[in-house]
């Protein structure tokens, strides 16, 4: 199911005026923000809040943002990180992926630019983690788009012409890629009023395959899980 909690960002910089500005912009964009001004405080805050992304200044009074990156990655959990640096000589190491940062921003920077980078890195991390990618309010899986606002399904940009019932079925499966649904569970997730029966569900799936699959006999999107029901293909990792 989709994760609706606020995304948490940990901002680490020893300049309070920079931290204040970044916090204000990130909170305005709907992020939950924690801040730290030292390496020690950053590690403590990291353990407490388990952020979805870190913004790390490289030069800190008691160490380096790179130390935070190393310490948090060695826990076996990979938290996306964007490095903040005024030191051009550090950029090659960061970009060279030697340290595993996802991106960097050089000082002086615009907070709007930082927010844009945060969104981009989070989007990449979600895709990598197998979460359904959303373009506007459309769920995108390979060439398939389930546009929730327009109530439309497109394949390679072309309207697939699905019915209202087919759309509802596809939406539930697309919002949970890789998750197998029994016929009963799928009907339950559809909050069905009794208009769809388990046996007619199979017919809807067959019709959907004809409309969205390049080869309905060898589905690329809607898989049959034998003995269970159906599932949407998982996103590539």
């Amino acid at each position, binding site marked *: 199911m989709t994760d609706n909690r606020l995304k948490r960002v940990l901002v680490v910089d020893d*300049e*309070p*005026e*920079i931290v*204040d*500005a*970044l916090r*204000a*912009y990130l909170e*305005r964009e709907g992020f939950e923000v924690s801040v730290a001004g030292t390496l020690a405080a950053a590690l403590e805050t990291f353990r407490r809040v388990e952020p979805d992304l870190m913004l790390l200044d490289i*030069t800190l009074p008691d160490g380096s943002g790179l130390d935070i990156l190393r310490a948090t990655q060695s826990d076996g959990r990979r938290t996306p990180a964007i490095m903040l*640096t*005024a*030191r*051009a*000589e550090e950029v090659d190491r960061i970009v060279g992926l030697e340290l595993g940062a996802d991106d960097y921003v*050089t*000082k*002086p*920077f*615009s*907070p*709007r630019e930082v927010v844009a980078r945060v969104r981009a890195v989070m989007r990449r991390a979600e895709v990598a983690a197998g979460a359904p990618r959303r373009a506007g309010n459309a769920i995108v899986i390979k060439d398939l788009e389930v546009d929730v606002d327009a109530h439309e399904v497109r394949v390679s940009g072309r309207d697939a012409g699905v019915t209202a019932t087919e759309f509802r079925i596809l939406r539930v499966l697309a919002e949970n890629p890789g998750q197998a649904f029994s016929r009963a569970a799928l009907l339950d997730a559809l909050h069905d009023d009794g208009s769809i029966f388990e046996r007619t569900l199979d017919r809807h799936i067959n019709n959907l395959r004809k409309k969205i699959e390049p080869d309905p006999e060898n589905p690329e999107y809607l898989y049959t899980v034998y003995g269970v029901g159906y599932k949407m293909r998982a996103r590539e990792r």
Partner: protein
Amino acid sequence: MNAELLRALDLATARDWAGAKAALLHVDDPVATRLAGVIADLDHRDEARRRSTADLRHEIGNALTIVQANLEGVIDGVLEPTKERLAGMRDALAAAGAALENFGRS
């Protein structure tokens, strides 16, 4: 002048201090010894210059970030234009100015 000395001079001209030192390592010659000393001194000065340039860049980068981020924040209506905020920007610029002045003297 032997080949090692010429090679060391070429490497030093290219600021490859480690290479120049290595080229002179096994040369038993008073000129080579003097040259190795000069190269070590140049290496030391080059490193000090690199460090102080990086420090200056850090100071000015931070100061400009404070000013840019706070001004943008006020313009965008994300931050309040308080007296404290203005004073913080002024102090950041003063710190950058002092760093620049020290750099010119070093």
